[in-house]
């Protein structure tokens, strides 16, 4: 990704709620899955890789199904890929059954262990590193990006995993200082909301609960990040919709 494009995306992400890196990585994930559906899955080296990794991981496999349902409404790309993988798995299983020994079972168990990580996970990791590297460059006091520095100073900071990664990456003490100051302020405000939420639950407390309602949700996001929460909008029931539609068409 180009440096200029990254700065635009970071500017947008820093004005939204939550960790900006998580947000960009989620969006990158969805872009990659779209590309994977169109072209990516049919490349020769990708097929070999998918054979070894037994398809995509849990998160990306279901994201693939949801994305295809949302964008193409047919599931053909996913079905073609998994049909091919099923044939391979079927053959492996058939061979394992011929020997019927405990040793053969253990060997089969090993072969069912995805060897390389899911290709989409590998891409995501690389992309997250790029975003983090770009962010620490933009935050640098020399040669940085004034707008991003200002936006970051006003933002809610990063989730803990991305904060730690950035602390390890940057070579500027000023960036470390800025990261810690923003994070300290975010933690203090979230703690105050959590206190308020608990106080309003006490007996006799009449005040209605406001935006502190989901403070603990945001606290969990801050502690662990929010990389896998990505779902294209409106796909919560897409699985059911597609199934019922297919049956209805039939």
């Amino acid at each position: 990704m180009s440096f200029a494009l990254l700065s635009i995306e970071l500017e947008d992400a820093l004005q939204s709620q939550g960790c900006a890196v998580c947000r960009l990585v989620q969006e990158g994930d969805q872009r990659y899955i779209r590309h994977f559906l169109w072209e990516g899955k049919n490349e020769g080296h990708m097929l070999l890789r998918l054979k070894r990794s037994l398809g995509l991981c849990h998160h990306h496999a279901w994201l693939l199904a949801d994305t295809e349902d949302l964008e193409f409404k047919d599931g053909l790309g996913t079905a073609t890929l998994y049909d091919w993988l099923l044939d391979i798995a079927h053959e492996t299983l058939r061979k394992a059954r011929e020997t019927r020994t405990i040793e053969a079972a253990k060997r089969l168990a090993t072969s069912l262990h995805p060897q390389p990580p899911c290709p989409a996970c590998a891409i995501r990791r690389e992309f997250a590193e790029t975003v983090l590297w770009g962010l620490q460059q933009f935050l640098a006091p020399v040669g940085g990006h004034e707008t991003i520095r200002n936006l970051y100073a006003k933002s809610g900071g990063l989730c803990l995993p991305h904060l730690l990664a950035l602390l390890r990456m940057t070579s500027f003490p000023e960036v470390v200082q800025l990261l810690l100051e923003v994070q300290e302020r975010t933690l203090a405000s979230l703690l105050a909301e959590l206190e308020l939420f608990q106080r309003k639950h006490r007996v006799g407390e009449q005040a209605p609960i406001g935006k502190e309602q989901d403070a603990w949700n945001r606290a969990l996001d801050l502690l662990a990040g929010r990389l896998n929460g990505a779902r294209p909008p409106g796909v919560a029931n897409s699985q059911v919709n597609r199934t019922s539609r297919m049956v209805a068409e039939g």
Partner: protein
Amino acid sequence: MSLHLLYSRWRAALTQAGCPACRIMEAVARRYMITLVREGKSHDEVYIRIQRAWGFCEGHGRMLKGISPAKLGDGMSPARLCSWLLGALSMRLSKALQSTRTSLSPRIQGRRWLRRKRPPGEGIAKQLEVEGRCPACEDLTRYERSLLWGLQRLLSETKGEETIRHLYHASHGLCFPHLRLALEEAEEPSSVDLLLQVQEQALSDLSWNLKEYLRKHDYRYRLEPMTQAEATSCLRAIALFAGER
């Protein structure tokens, strides 16, 4: 864990659609999270484990968010836990921040910076980093293993249970991640044989359904009616490889 308890869990799960191990684990994980957050967190040892991991992994955090607040004391239990965790994190962060606010002159700071071998934030990151695995992952992985050990035992011809063998025979087998665990735990060839026999049949059926699903998308056959099994085959194939949603 008692084999009797596992028997009842498997017996109930084997009558449902999809990977029975995924179904059991989903229910167990939800119960575990509710108990841990409502009661468990107040025990010193448990809380220390949670704090060392700074809460939960992203997946278990998401699961917690998906549980109805009513089951979590109107959200009070997770709110209290999060405020403990954020309080501890805030204290560590303040300490780290103080260490960066030095009274040294910029010239001395600059010289130190030039002599440094590690990135300036490395020490702080070390102070804040996670010191243990997500407690839910740790405990549930152990449970999952004993669950699959129980299955292979219940499927054994000599030490097993006829009802479970019968139910498993009629089922669609396990997803691959759980089949791998069951095979790793396998102690007897008879269990392996049944596990693989059912799995091969399930794969064969699913493969046929998926091929039909693809064929009926061809314009020449698109008027042929699609069965429920064919319509769901694509999603079932994903569940087979990656586990249930």
